[in-house]
C-alpha cells in the first residue's frame, strides 16, 4: 500500500483536478473522486474520504482567492453547473498570438436571434421560432445543431409531432453561463405569462412614448398566432 508522504491540501488537489479537466467539473464529481481515491489508495488518502460538498465549495472559494492574490493570469469560474479554469480575458491578445489564432468565428445576428428564442422559450418547435422571427429558420437550426449549441429535446404533442429544440451544456459553456437562469432578462422573455395574455391584450395601440431605440418592456405579448 503506497504511502502518501505529505498530504496535499484540499485546495491543491481540487486545483490540480480543475487544471487537467477539459470540461467543467461538478462538486458532486469531486466528492466522488475523494471517496474513490480513499477506497482505492487507503492510507493518508482516507483522510479525505468524508469530504463533503461544502468542504469542496470552501476549497474552491479559497483557491479563487489565492489565485486572485497571486495574480496568476487564470482563475476558477463557475460555469454550466461546474467549475473550470480559464485564462483572464485581459491576457487574451497574447494567448491568441501564442496559439497563432486569428479572430475567432462568431455567430451571425440571425443565428444569435434564433438561439435567443430557443434559449428563452425552450422547449420550442421550429414553427414557434419562425412565428417570432417571421422567416424560415431551418438552415440556421441545422447550423446550430452542427455547432452543438442546441439539440432536439423531444417531440411536441401537436399534430405531426414536431421536434422540440432546447439548448445544450455547450451553449452554457460557450456564453460562460452557469445556468439558464443567468440569461439576461430571463424573467421577461421566458414563456409563462403567455397563457393569460391573449385575453388581456388591449384592442387598441397603447399610447407609448417609447422611442424605437429603447428596449421595450411590454408584457403580455404572445409568441405565435399565425
Amino acid at each position: 500500500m503506497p504511502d502518501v508522504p505529505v498530504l496535499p491540501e484540499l485546495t491543491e488537489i481540487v486545483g490540480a483536478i480543475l487544471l487537467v479537466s477539459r470540461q467543467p467539473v461538478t462538486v458532486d464529481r469531486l466528492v466522488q473522486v475523494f471517496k474513490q481515491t480513499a477506497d482505492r489508495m487507503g492510507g493518508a488518502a482516507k483522510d479525505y474520504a468524508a469530504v463533503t460538498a461544502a468542504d469542496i465549495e470552501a476549497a474552491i472559494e479559497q483557491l479563487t482567492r489565492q489565485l486572485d492574490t497571486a495574480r496568476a493570469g487564470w482563475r476558477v469560474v463557475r460555469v454550466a453547473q461546474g467549475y473550470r479554469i480559464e485564462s483572464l480575458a485581459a491576457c487574451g491578445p497574447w494567448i491568441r498570438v501564442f496559439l497563432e489564432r486569428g479572430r475567432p468565428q462568431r455567430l451571425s445576428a440571425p443565428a444569435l436571434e434564433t438561439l435567443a428564442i430557443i434559449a428563452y422559450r425552450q422547449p420550442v418547435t421550429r414553427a414557434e421560432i419562425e412565428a417570432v422571427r417571421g422567416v424560415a429558420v431551418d438552415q440556421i437550426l441545422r447550423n446550430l445543431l452542427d455547432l452543438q449549441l442546441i439539440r432536439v429535446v423531444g417531440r411536441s404533442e401537436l399534430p405531426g409531432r414536431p421536434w422540440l429544440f432546447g439548448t445544450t451544456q455547450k451553449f452554457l459553456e460557450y456564453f460562460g453561463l452557469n445556468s439558464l437562469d443567468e440569461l439576461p432578462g430571463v424573467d421577461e422573455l421566458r414563456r409563462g405569462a403567455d397563457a393569460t395574455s391573449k385575453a388581456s391584450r388591449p384592442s387598441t395601440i397603447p399610447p407609448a412614448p417609447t422611442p424605437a431605440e429603447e428596449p421595450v418592456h411590454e408584457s403580455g405579448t404572445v409568441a405565435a398566432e399565425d
Partner: protein
Amino acid sequence: MNGEPMSSGNDYKVTLEVFEGPLDLLLYLIRKEEVNIYDIPIERITRQYMEYLSMMRMLDLSVAGEFLVMAATLMMIKSRMLLPPEERSETTEEEEAEDPRWDLVRRLVEYKKFKDAARRLEELERERCDVFTRAEEPLPSPASASAVSLHDVSLFDLLTAFQRALERIGPEDLGEIFAERYTLGEKIDQLLAILAERDQISLSELIAGMRSRHEVVVTFLALLELIRLQQLRAVQEQPFGEIWISRAVVEPTTLES
C-alpha cells in the same frame, strides 16, 4: 463550401441566401427612420420596404417568400388606414375599432425583445472571445459559415449604402445599360487587389468613382460574395455610419476538419 472564389467567366452567378426576414427589415427601417414603433408611418415605411425589396431582387439575393407576404400585409394595412375607423372591419358597435397596424406592431415588439436578448448574448460571446480554457475550440465547425457570416454589419446596412450609390448615379443612358463591361469575376479580383495593397477601404470611397448602375450592382455582388466566403469583412463602427471593408482574418480552423 465552394472554396476559392472563381476569377473568370461571365456565367458565374451568386445566389446569396438571406437569413434575415421581413420583420428584420421593418425593424431596421423603423430604427433608420427614427419613427415610433407604436405609431408607424405606414405609407413611408411601406415605400421604403418596397425599395429595399427591389434592391434585394436586383442583387439576386434569394429573397424568402415571407418578404412578399409582408409586402401584401403592408399594402393591406395602408389601405385600411384610409378608411374611417368605423368602417374598417367586422367589429361590433361596442367594440372599439382596432388600429390596422396593431397586429404587426405586436409582432415587431415581440421580435424586438428577442433581438435585444440576442445582442446581450453577443456581448457575452465577445467577452468570451478573449478567454481560453483547456476545452476544445468553442466553435470548431467551419462547415457552418452561413451561420457566422455577415455579423459585423447587417445586410440592410449594405443595402442602404447600395441605395445611396444608385441614387447618386441616377437614371442612366441607354448606352450604359447595354455596355456590360464588368463581370463578377473581374470585380472580385479587383476588390481583392485593392485590399492586398491597403488594409481597409470605406465603402463610399470604393464606389465613389463609379459611373454606371451596372458597375455598382456588380461591385455589391462581388462584395457580398467575398464576405460570404469569408475573404472580406465589412465593419460599421456606429449605427448607420460608414462601412469599412477589410480582409478577413479568420483562423484557418486549427482542429481537424
